[in-house]
């Protein structure tokens, strides 16, 4: 079952990896990203950030969706991490079993708007967030599990 899909531009790092995995009770982490599988240094760094006792699978977006649909992930309490809203939306649209999306960190870029703490979205990303909400997904903003949830519905334009 899917515990959560998180958007974090830093993907898997330090205490974030640890606290989320622990709070969710996840036993498997999927890093769904098109760069990491082909970027050895980035891949190594992410592997080093893996909390003990959980499986860590790294796949590009297409292979991630395929794996989710195939059912091989069903036996896991899965925590999915992607680096962008666009990647999140691709996966959620292709695999509607995902009911909760967490926006953890999206860095500021040209043309972005700060919608909350560490989350900066382009207008087209706000549209994607709204699209996910319309599909019945709960989109919430939190950096760490102990933060108060901010419902994205209330902050996107």
């Amino acid at each position, binding site marked *: 079952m899917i515990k959560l899909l998180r958007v974090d531009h830093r993907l898997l790092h330090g*205490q974030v990896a640890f606290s989320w995995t622990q709070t969710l009770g996840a036993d*498997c982490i999927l890093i769904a990203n098109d760069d990491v599988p082909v970027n050895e*240094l980035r891949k*190594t*760094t992410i592997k080093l950030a893996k909390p003990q006792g959980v499986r860590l*699978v*790294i796949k590009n977006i297409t292979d991630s969706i395929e794996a989710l649909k195939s059912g091989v992930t069903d036996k896991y309490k899965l925590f999915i991490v992607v680096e962008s809203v666009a990647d999140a939306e691709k996966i959620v649209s292709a695999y509607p079993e995902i009911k909760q999306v967490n926006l953890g960190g999206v860095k500021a870029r040209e043309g972005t708007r700060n919608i909350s703490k560490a989350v900066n979205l382009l207008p087209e990303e706000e549209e994607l967030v709204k699209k996910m909400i319309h599909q019945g997904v709960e989109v919430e903003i939190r950096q*760490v599990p*102990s933060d108060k949830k901010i419902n994205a519905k209330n902050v996107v334009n």
Partner: protein
Amino acid sequence: MRYLLFASHGKLAEGILHSVEMITGKQENVWTISAYVDEEKDLHSQISDVINKLGKEDELIVVSDIFGGSVNNEFMNLLGDKRIHLIAGLNLPLVIELVSMRNMETDTLRLIKTALSNSKNSIKYCNLEIEIDTEDEEF
């Protein structure tokens, strides 16, 4: 109640609390002493102010910046008080271990020993770490 106190020469203690809260969220029952910053304040009385807040059944885990330093030495004098546990070597991995386990582990000795061993292991020469080649995992 189990309290934490970070104590340092200068502002390391308050700085480390700022960093910890950025990573783990807001922390309750954590105090800091930044010694010698304000010349009006005497370290001895700063420490007394904290100790006086403790009840009979409370516990205080002090993390000082450096073993053998004057801040740590001040606390060494208090170790006759069995409510006080003193760790020297304030650093972020250690403090994160302590704050994240302190409400789960009831045995204080075990809490401290685990936090020490885990955090010691997190001091790394990264150039060597990336040489380690681990297998890719699959579902």
